[in-house]
């Protein structure tokens, strides 16, 4: 590889023209012809470079001048050689550095490829992990939902208790009446009054039974006992059911105004949609201050089904508004809220090709728009 150690021939140090010129100059200086010879002859002086004999200088000059001419020639060769050696070394070094650079470049490319693969694997792992987290989230939500259902059940139990109470008492009274009727048939008492009251009792009991039946029906819809699967849903009916259940939880004290427009049926998961409505209505109910109200409106607008749920409660600040859809983000105290309500609502809407929009002003209230595309 290296030509640093090469021994030079005369032609490699001085070109032919330079040699001729040098000989001419020496000749002019000495006043006699000066020539190069390949072999040692009489009246010739050896030309040496780095211990190598490069040739002989033949002159017709006196010995001392002839010698001086040869040494001068050698001196010029020495400096030419110095340059040549340095240039060769420089060439070698540059070439070696370039090769090294190319190798480094190749190594860099290889490592880049390696990191690319690594980052792809990382991406896959992250995606996998995200799936696991999402799944866990849903499981958590599911358990939160079951807890909510439990609370609902408590409300419902209370709700059912009242009609059952009066139905029970009515039936006892009715039993007494039957005794009296039996007696009156012999005692000649006016039966008309008794019979009227008896019918009223039965009528009230029937209405109580109807109320229980309707609550149970609402609960069945809400808890999705009958309809796990895709079905044709009446959004208005689902909204009403959800409002009923919420009322049941709040002892019928919530000021909810329903303005439901005529809507076409929507294909979807009724239990999930009820869940979405419940989550938003529940938030609205919790946001209310004294004298507040909730307005629920539905309508067909631009070919989409729209449900507005608006409250004039406490509202939200902008930085909270930015985060409300984040899973597990909650402003409520620990245990009071899962932080999943709105994120699950959005998931449900997305599953129904819908979207959720939220407008809120701190201290003025919140308006939630649920929009479902039809067709």
């Amino acid at each position, binding site marked *: *590889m*290296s030509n*640093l*150690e090469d*021994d030079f021939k005369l032609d490699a140090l001085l070109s032919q023209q330079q040699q001729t010129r040098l000989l001419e100059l020496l000749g002019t200086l000495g006043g006699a012809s000066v020539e190069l010879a390949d072999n040692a002859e009489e009246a010739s002086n050896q030309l*040496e470079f*780095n*211990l190598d004999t490069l040739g002989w200088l033949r002159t017709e000059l006196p010995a001392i001048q002839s010698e001086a001419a040869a040494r001068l020639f050698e001196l010029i060769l*020495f400096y030419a*050689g*110095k340059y040549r*050696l*340095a240039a060769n*070394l*420089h060439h*070698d*070094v540059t070439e*070696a*550095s370039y090769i*090294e650079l190319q190798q480094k470049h190749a190594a860099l490319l290889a490592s880049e490829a390696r990191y690319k693969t690594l980052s792809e694997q990382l991406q896959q792992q992250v995606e996998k992990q995200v799936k696991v987290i999402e799944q866990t989230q849903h499981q958590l939500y599911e358990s939160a939902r079951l807890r909510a259902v439990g609370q609902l059940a408590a409300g419902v139990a209370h709700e059912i208790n009242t009609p059952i109470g009066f139905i029970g008492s009515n039936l006892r009274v009715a039993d007494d009446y039957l005794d009296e009727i039996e007696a009156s048939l012999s005692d000649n008492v006016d039966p008309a009054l008794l019979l009227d009251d008896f019918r009223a009792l039965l009528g009230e009991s029937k209405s109580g039974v109807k109320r229980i039946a309707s609550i149970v029906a609402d609960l069945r819809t809400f808890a999705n006992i009958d309809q796990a699967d895709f079905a044709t849903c009446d959004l208005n009916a689902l909204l009403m059911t959800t409002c009923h259940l919420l009322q049941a939880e709040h002892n019928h004290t919530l000021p909810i105004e329903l303005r439901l427009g005529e809507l076409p049926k929507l294909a979807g998961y009724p239990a999930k949609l009820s869940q979405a409505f419940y989550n938003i209505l529940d938030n609205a109910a919790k946001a209310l201050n004294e004298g507040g109200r909730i307005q629920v409106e539905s309508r067909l607008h631009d070919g989409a089904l729209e449900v507005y749920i608006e409250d004039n409660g406490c509202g939200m600040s902008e930085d909270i508004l930015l985060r409300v859809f984040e899973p597990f983000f909650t402003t409520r105290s620990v245990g009071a809220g899962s932080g999943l309500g709105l994120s699950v609502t959005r998931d449900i809407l997305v599953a129904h090709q819908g979207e959720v929009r939220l407008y809120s002003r701190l201290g003025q209230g919140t308006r939630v728009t649920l929009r479902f595309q039809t067709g």
Partner: protein
Amino acid sequence: MANYYAIENKLVLKIVYYGPALSGKTTNLMQLHTLLMPQRKGELMVLETRDDRTLFFDMLPIGLRSEKGLDLRLKLYTVPGQVQHDSTRKAVLSRADGVIFIADSQLSQQDNNAIAFDNLASNLQKVGLDIENLPLVVQFNKRDLPSAVDETILQTRWATTPWAPITLASALKGHGVVKSFQQLLSRLYPAVDSEFSLAANHAIGFQTFVDRLSAVNEASDE
């Protein structure tokens, strides 16, 4: 990696002076140029930058011609010691037949010595030479300086290496320079002899090799 040219019956060996910056490699070579009187001695070629620091290398050719006609040449090179000239060091070091490592005796320079020696080891490996088998002499230069580390300490430190004993020198004063060179010659001879049969084919024995290549001027105090 000696070169033998059969047509000319010429054998060229390469000796490289290696070591940290400013340890006295060029000074060693200049002193050799002054002190040595080998059978043949060429011009000392010094390629330096403006501030006397070696840029490419220095080179001194010496030689002898045996009775049987072998044209034996030794080319003594120095490398540039400054860190940034590593590529040049590697190029000069390639195909070396022997190395003289010039260390700086000053206490403050011991780290630089170690760094330069590691650099020598790694560059030898890069140019395909085995430091364990390469004739190598370690010279601690600048013995004349007051801060020079004590000789016993240095000898002890190097005693377990294949390069013991180390040689000591004050290159500026010309002390120890030829001795180091002779030590290198004596470590170089067996390797060259086994490859080129110096004794058998060319009638150059160990003593002839060392004496004739390192003959000194009578006036010198070596």
